[in-house]
């Protein structure tokens, strides 16, 4: 099964990037994708236990998360915009370092959490060591909201095993 997934993951980008649909190019794509899938499927899919429905559920959850994330990014930009143009900028800022421990177990979900913290309003991840996150927050309010709703959402998508 992992060979089929790897083949799809390799072949779809081939079609998009080559953009030619004649026999030669598509045939070459099929041969190359098959060979690479055969050799390196073990590298692409490391958790073998996950079933097809698990993967699809993760994908759907991640798509919804991306939409929510985009709203957060817009809010973050408006925040930076407002602070940057305000004449009393130093009154609005109260920067601080916050340290917390996360409950997330997988490397992937920690990576998503770190990048999400960077993209939400007023917080940037400085360092991740094991399950300890060091975060720089621009205001008190941003610091208090950590890790909050984001960690729960990510845990729902990636950590639950049915």
């Amino acid at each position: 099964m992992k060979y089929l997934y790897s083949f799809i993951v390799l072949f779809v980008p081939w079609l998009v990037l080559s953009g030619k649909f004649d026999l030669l190019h598509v045939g070459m794509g099929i041969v190359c994708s098959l060979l690479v899938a055969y050799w390196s499927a073990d590298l692409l899919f490391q958790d073998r236990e996950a079933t097809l429905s698990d993967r699809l559920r993760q994908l759907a959850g991640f798509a919804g998360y991306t939409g929510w994330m985009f709203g957060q990014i817009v809010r973050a930009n408006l925040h930076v915009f407002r602070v940057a143009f305000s004449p009393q900028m130093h009154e609005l800022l109260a920067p601080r370092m916050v340290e917390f421990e996360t409950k997330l177990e997988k490397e992937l979900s920690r990576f998503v959490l770190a990048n999400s913290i960077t993209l939400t309003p007023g917080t940037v991840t400085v360092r991740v060591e094991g399950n300890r996150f060091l975060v720089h927050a621009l205001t008190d309010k941003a610091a208090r909201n950590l890790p909050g709703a984001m960690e729960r959402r990510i845990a729902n998508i990636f950590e639950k095993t049915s």
Partner: protein
Amino acid sequence: MEILAYILISTGLIFFLGTTIGLLRFPDFYSRMHAASKGDTLSTVLILLGCICLVSTQGEMNWLLGLKILLIINFIFIGSPTATHAMMDAGNKAGAEPWKKDSE
């Protein structure tokens, strides 16, 4: 479609302006990185979406170009926060002190 493209690109440019002014006005290394990381992501994505709208009005294989630009957006979403993270970590290791309100 072209009008939508121009609206998207101009919005992206306005956000870039806000980012740049934030980058110049913020008091220390860390808060400047805040401005840079956020503004960069959204404005680049807006400009690229505008490019998709522009591209879709010309040529017959344009959906392929659109897909390629979507791929670029995807990589920016992964790459931009990671680069910010690397720079923040480097600054922290080099001993940059966070700015405090009473230090001026």
